[in-house]
């Protein structure tokens, strides 16, 4: 069955530290992959997306993600976290249908 897994429910980092959020997918073929961010009381905002080509994808707010086919992963990274990055992050995948499959989310806490 198709699935998207985010192994970390909560992550805490200090402001200025680097960040990596993990996402693994299980699909018959390589899906299209997305990272969304959800701030408290808000909807989901697209950070970046991967379809094909360059495996390192740049997004908004200084985020990037790297697609690794051999590891079935699409991890999100940021070199230096800001307090405003505290939010919940969702990885999602889709194939040739309407259907997004979302991971269960990773809640990021940033320490001052």
């Amino acid at each position, binding site marked *: 069955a198709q699935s998207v897994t985010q192994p970390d429910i909560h992550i805490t980092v200090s402001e200025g530290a680097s960040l990596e959020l993990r996402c693994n997918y299980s699909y018959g073929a390589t899906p299209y992959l997305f990272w969304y961010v959800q701030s408290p009381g808000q*909807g989901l905002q697209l950070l970046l997306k991967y379809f094909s080509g360059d495996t390192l994808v740049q997004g908004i707010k200084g985020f990037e993600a790297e697609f690794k086919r051999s590891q079935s992963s699409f991890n999100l990274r940021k070199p230096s976290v800001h307090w405003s990055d505290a939010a919940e992050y969702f990885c999602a995948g889709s194939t040739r249908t309407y*259907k997004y499959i*979302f991971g*269960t989310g990773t809640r990021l806490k940033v320490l001052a």
Partner: protein
Amino acid sequence: NAGVTQTPKFRILKIGQSMTLQCAQDMNHNYMYWYRQDPGMGLKLIYYSVGAGITDKGEVPNGYNVSRSTTEDFPLRLELAAPSQTSVYFCASSYSLEEDQPQHFGDGTRLSIL
């Protein structure tokens, strides 16, 4: 740009009551979606629509109904509210069903059923 607008933002219902969650988008998107978000569960698709007059079920449609009389609006109806429907509901829209088209989300409706 308004994007996707959901109303109300919060609501408390009693068991057995009915209500309609409103969703409107101003991006002329043909495709619209309703999700529910439960803690630790991610988002699950309830219903979707590919255009005015056309709707179809998603993963978790039981207990809900939708209609799509215009391109802009996609209301979600709960006929007999049950505690299991306590959740955060998100409406989304996209330009097409192609997998490379991101979905745009509203800010959600937080619904509690007591």
